């Protein structure tokens, strides 16, 4: 009896050890880096971080990007998932096609969109060949910050909507058909069925998808680096910049801590907002 009780823990042990050694331990080291300087405990690194002239813009950019990208992705993923769930044939083919961008690294995704928006990119050559413009426009220049922003939003939406959609399609598959039929018989229009049945019963999947996406949105880096370089600083970019360009591990660690705190805060918020009371579960 005791051995069967211990078995699951025994089986989980290797993964746990792995995570402790390669995740928790380095994490503690980073935390120590952030809160110490020359061996003494201090908040100096955080002061350096926040007093930097770029900090408020960086912070604002990251938040703004998440605030724009995540709702767009949520709306798109919900509508795509609804359509995909209704398909009887070709469903997996479409899921695979939608999932293609997931197979790319975010740097590759950034480079693809750079190839579109660049001065010698697809967009410019099309516009020139169609005769809409005389000479290529520099879309991603420092004068056009909002174009850079839109390009980043586009690339992010293109790249990471599918992951939300896949989670939501799986979640919708768990909702028994009878609930929709009952709602239909009792007078709910398709929109009402979506709002009154799908959304509430999809809360667990929405929670997972949103937490995953929000955390990834705060960690956005390679797409921005490829498309905007230093024109559009974000928190992760600054972490990289302090670590490698400015060779200051302490401040870089402080940035990492900040991103962690934001991620945890939003995760807790989402867990709270989309909680399902035990008795109301499917």
């Amino acid at each position, binding site marked *: 009896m005791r051995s069967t009780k211990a078995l699951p823990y025994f089986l989980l042990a290797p993964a746990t050890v792995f995570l402790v050694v390669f995740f928790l331990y380095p994490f503690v080291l980073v935390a120590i880096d952030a809160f110490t300087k020359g061996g003494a405990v201090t908040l100096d690194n955080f002061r350096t971080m926040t007093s930097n002239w770029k900090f408020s813009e960086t912070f604002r950019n990251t938040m703004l990007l998440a605030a724009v990208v995540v709702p767009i992705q949520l709306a798109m993923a919900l509508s795509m998932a609804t359509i995909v769930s209704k398909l009887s044939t070709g469903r997996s083919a479409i899921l695979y096609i939608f999932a293609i961008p997931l197979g790319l690294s975010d740097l590759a995704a950034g480079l693809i969109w750079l190839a579109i928006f660049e001065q010698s990119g697809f967009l410019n050559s099309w516009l020139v060949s169609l005769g809409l413009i005389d000479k290529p426009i520099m879309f991603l220049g420092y004068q056009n910050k909002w174009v850079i922003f839109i390009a980043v939003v586009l690339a992010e939406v293109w790249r990471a909507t599918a992951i939300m959609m896949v989670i939501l399609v799986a979640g919708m598959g768990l909702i028994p058909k009878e*609930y929709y*039929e009952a709602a239909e018989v009792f007078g709910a229009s398709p929109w009402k069925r979506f709002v009154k049945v799908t959304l509430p019963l999809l809360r667990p999947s929405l929670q997972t998808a949103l937490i995953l996406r929000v955390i990834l949105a705060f960690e956005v880096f390679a797409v921005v680096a490829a498309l905007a370089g230093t024109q559009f600083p974000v928190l992760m970019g600054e972490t990289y910049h302090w670590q490698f360009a400015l060779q200051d591990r302490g401040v870089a660690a402080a940035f990492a801590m900040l991103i962690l705190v934001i991620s945890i805060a939003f995760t807790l918020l989402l867990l709270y907002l989309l909680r399902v009371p*035990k008795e109301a579960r499917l």
Partner: protein
Amino acid sequence: MAEIEIKGVAKRFGAFTALHQIDLTITNQEFMVLLGASGCGKTTLLRIIAGLETPSEGEVWIGGRRVDHLPPRQRGIAMVFQNYAVFPHLTVYENIAFGLRMQKKPQSEVDHRVKRTAELMHIEQLLQRYSGQLSGGQRQRVAVARALAMEPDVILMDEPLSNLDALLRLEMRAELKGVLAHSKTTAIYVTHDQVEAMSLADRIAVMHQGRIVQAASPVEVYRNPAARFVGSFIGNPPMNFLPATKSGEERFIVAGSMLKGPKASGDIEFAIRPEDMDIGPGGIPATVRVVEPLGAHTLITTDVEGKIFRVVLDSNAEAKTGDMLSLVPRADRIRWFDPQSTSAIQ
């Protein structure tokens, strides 16, 4: 006020025909039971009336209005589902109120109707609970209350009692009958349980392989099956059948005895219910195989010319395995079937 007319409704799923040309009229306030084994098309027919399935051909009329092109919500129906479909994310109160909210009824009326139907179904103390906190029987009550709260013209029920245990089923059956008789709605009730069908129905439509074999009152269906299938499906134990060899004008030999039968050109089939026979001289010779005393009666399984032949006798009848019985069928209870068409011969 709602009469339901089903005119030439057929349903095909690819090469499979689930329903062949169904014609059925259900009068206002009638309690109609669709009875049949699984796969006979009874649920498909109900879903076509509900609008959850579209017929391949034919028309559905409810209350003098053609509805087969309308979505369910415009048909003036309410439905009780087999698995109840009580929304897990809503309280019992909001579940019952769901349809009324969709119709944008004022809160005072919603409240009034929810409380009244909850009282009717004896669940007024559960209104603030969620479905996850209810037993199967309570969920069933919520599902019925939700349908009744709509005050629909027609209430459709798809095997609503099949997931309840035997005792609860008996209790709910009686309650449903009372509540629906009182509510004056037209009801269509799908079941595979013949006892349920007999006890609830004003009329039973017996379905077999996508066709309605007989639509008549429970007693009529039991006493005068329109086809061999009905006799063999309804009744527990079912009807007994024996070949009847023609031996003269309206004369047939059944297991060695001469019986007066209908006008027929050739051999036909003799049928009798197990309880419609007495022991007496000159009857059908039967060898007793199994004797099962059931309290009120004794069920005796016998062998007649190598065929299983059941008889239900008074419990003080004495018989034991191996005995020879002489079973005399009551003349007015004998039924005859055409072996080719399987339909009854009058």
